[in-house]
């Protein structure tokens, strides 16, 4: 396959993945950036445009397919994962992308999300996490922090939030990553890795809702705090952050922040995205940034190979046909005890 998608041998660009529909997210919404980064990386995946299908549920993020010049289906709340599963099982030739939000994927559709993850269909699942319900105008979400004041929690939310990456890792996800709307380069890199992975690629994307939850992630996205409060992990590289001033070492299974003035890179935790135990530690670095020295990690946390549901399903069908021959309906209905009335 060529490196670049083409139409009539002309290389495609992000513009070719832009539909004629007016984008209707609020001005300043983080979704615009995510849309742009997806449109930017698709031409370089070597997949013909007609082979892409974007499937979404309900919520602000789920309008996404309408803006993509690909095949798309805007389904119902929480069920994009199920719709995408049926599509991928019967059409493994397609590149299927699920677009969802924190409410869609982790509240009404949480069970379907976990079931998708354990089945490991070869799809990409992008969860736009803005820690709020936007489309319904500002109620707390399953990722909102405890005590959050919203329209439905005037004296503070009581719910303990999900840690999405840890949740899916617990369901044996084969690809777990986190990125941010405000870091286009990082997001593009993660998206490319997700597309390349065979299996369900779960990507949590921190996304700013500038209307109902403005600045929820500023501590990780704005340059004053970004490098102190976030760490960008890379496979085989030591865990260094704060512009090289700090590092993380493992004290047993406990991550500890060290001052690089007193430590060498050899002492540090080297990120190994194949190590599920360390990936668990990494995704568990999730305390409120105000209460911890440990930075919030971004990047690909874990990736492994496991058979994809649709491949095994296809194999079972092919093996059965190889053993028994292709089914013959006339033979089937004539099977068992029969008798003739003359």
């Amino acid at each position, binding site marked *: 396959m060529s490196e670049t998608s083409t139409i009539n041998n002309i290389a495609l660009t992000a513009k070719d993945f832009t*539909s004629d*529909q007016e984008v209707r997210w609020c001005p300043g919404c983080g979704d615009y950036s995510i849309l742009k980064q997806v449109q930017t990386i698709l031409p370089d995946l070597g997949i013909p*445009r*007609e*082979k*892409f*299908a*974007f*499937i*979404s549920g*309900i919520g602000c993020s789920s309008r996404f*397919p*309408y803006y*993509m*010049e*690909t*095949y*798309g*289906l*805007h*389904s*119902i709340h929480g*069920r994009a*994962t*199920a*719709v*995408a*599963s*049926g*599509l*991928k*099982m*019967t*059409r493994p*030739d*397609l590149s299927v992308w699920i677009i969802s939000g924190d409410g869609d994927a982790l509240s009404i559709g949480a*069970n*379907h999300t976990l*079931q998708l993850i354990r089945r490991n269909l070869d799809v990409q699942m992008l969860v736009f996490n803005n820690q709020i319900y936007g489309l319904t105008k500002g109620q707390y979400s399953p990722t909102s922090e405890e005590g959050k004041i919203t329209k439905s929690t005037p004296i503070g939310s009581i719910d303990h939030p999900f840690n999405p990456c840890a949740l899916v890792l617990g369901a044996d996800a084969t690809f777990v990553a986190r990125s941010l709307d405000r870091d286009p380069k990082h997001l593009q890199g993660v998206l490319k890795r997700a597309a390349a992975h065979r299996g369900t690629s779960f990507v949590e994307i921190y996304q700013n809702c500038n209307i109902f939850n403005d600045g929820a992630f500023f501590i990780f996205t704005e340059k004053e705090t970004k490098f102190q409060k976030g760490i960008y992990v890379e496979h085989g590289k030591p865990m260094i952050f704060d512009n090289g001033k700090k590092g993380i070492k493992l004290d047993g299974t406990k991550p500890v922040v060290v001052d690089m003035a007193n430590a060498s890179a050899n002492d540090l935790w080297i990120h190994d995205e194949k190590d599920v135990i360390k990936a668990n530690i990494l995704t568990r670095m999730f305390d409120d940034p105000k209460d911890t020295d440990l930075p919030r990690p971004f990047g690909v946390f874990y990736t492994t190979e496991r058979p994809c549901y649709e491949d095994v*399903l296809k194999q*079972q*069908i092919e093996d*059965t*046909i190889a053993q*028994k*021959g*292709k*089914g013959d*309906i*006339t033979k*089937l*209905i*004539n*099977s*068992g*005890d*029969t*008798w*003739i*009335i003359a």
Partner: protein
Amino acid sequence: MAKPIVLKDEVTIRFAGDSGDGMQLTGTEFTNASALLGNDLSTFPDYPAEIRAPQGTVAGVSGFQIHFGSTEVDTPGDICNVLVAMNAAALKANLRYLEVGGLIIANTDGFDEKNLRLAKIEKNPLEDGSLDKYNVIKIDITKITRAALQDSGLSTKEADRSKNMFVLGLLMWLYNRPMDSAIRNLEAKFSKKPDILQANLRLLRAGYDYGETTELFTTRYDVKQAPTMEKGKYRNIMGNQALAYGFIAASELSGLPLYLGSYPITPASDILHELSKYKAFNVHTFQAEDEIAAICAAIGASFGGALAITTSSGPGIALKGEAIGLATMLELPIVIVNIQRGGPSTGLPTKTEQADLLQAMYGRNGECPTVVICTRQPNDCFDVAIEASRLAIEHMVPVMLLSDGYIANGAEPWMIPDMSQYSAIKPNIITEANGENGKLLPYKRDEKLVRPWVLPGTKGLEHRIGGLEKQHETGNVSYDPENHEFMVKTRQAKVDKIADYIPLQKIEQGPESGDLVVVGWGSTFGCIRTSVRELNNQGHNIAQIHLRYLNPFPKNLGDILKNYKKVLVPEINNGQLVKILRDKFLVDAIPFNKIQGLPFNTVEMKAKILEVLGK
């Protein structure tokens, strides 16, 4: 000296025992032997909701009824001529189905103190004279079985499991059935357990010989081939099995791969089990995490170009409602199968009811018309599955197929159809743009008001669909008030127009006009048919109409109904079709309802018909 054989026109036998007594197998093998003799027949299993309810209790009784005859047989029979009771609980639970003077074959070991206590019976009915109005044959089947298998090396527990084969052998003798098919099937079933096979075969023969040698029986019976049956090749078929075959056939007729998204639920699960066996037919079955995922996965498969179906029962259909609305909006084909059971809520999972018709017609948010068709009996299911698939695919709509527990588990002879007689199902798949300047209009409609099916992967036809209201032709999201009204009316008109593509309603039997027409749908068919036929044979002149198409109705239905002074609508619910008929045709239809988890019997049906006739 051989005992004399008396010919009977029709016989109904009910095998009843504890869940573990193997009554279903006994009944099935008796059925096979009768079918091979060319009898017309109908069967129905009656098993408990629990897998193994406490042994010996009434809750744990499992029954199997067969009605076979040399005349036309339309129902599993109202009243039995023979009741096999393997224990006291089985007798207690089933005596009410036995005719006065009927034969009871009782396993005396099942009437010991413990069994009587478990069945909550104070005095042994085999001893206290309470069964004097029946013909009771008492046999200690357990003792005979243990004696026959004394040297078999089997434990007592293992040996006792062969009791049912003694019963089968005895009944085979009593009704002069050949044993070849039973022997063949036992050999296949126990091919890897030779000692169990030998035990079963030994008891089968012991039962047969017992009939011949004991003086308990003075007469044998026989039921000859039914001359009323159409010429052809037959096999037995159960309702759910026939639906599964029908969908495989529809897959072949349409050239589309079959995809089933399903979640286990009684009494629909057998369709999932059955279809899971047929991977060689490129059948994709998916046991989803819940009912919603099951239908949503089917919708995804339909988007990708598969013949997509989902199978469930009432509670599951309730969960699927939102997704049926989505498929209606997407205008993608999907068949939703509802094997109805007693409701509401969990209701009576193993009992039958027809109470989901209004749910099928109206059970969604918004103006959401759905095509509804139903099956009337097990040997109708194959064709109905093909027809549901045809309507879904050729009209790009969700189709609800209604069956029920009575049809799903019932079995009867099925004349095996010739596949070359079915016309192809033609999906409206396009691979070129249908608008001007090479533009795709995904919601541009043809003369049937049907939009094209545009499959992902088709170059140049990339487009988006979804659950938000669609703009006419372009399919883009639209909140335009006039467009919404137009689209609602159009989706309704599309469903209504299907009336042009289905057969006209025919009158099953009776006059084209007159005093009374009995209008039914679904599994009441056999009972209404027998009842009307018998009354007409006595000189009445009653008509019967039985509906397959419930939405839309056949175009001539309203006119037909006007030709009768009275319209009687029997249903196993609290009156649902009757509401729709009154609504659509302003007829003063009379409801006749039974809501006991049981089918109608012909006695009550005939009584009601006569009451309505004023006789």
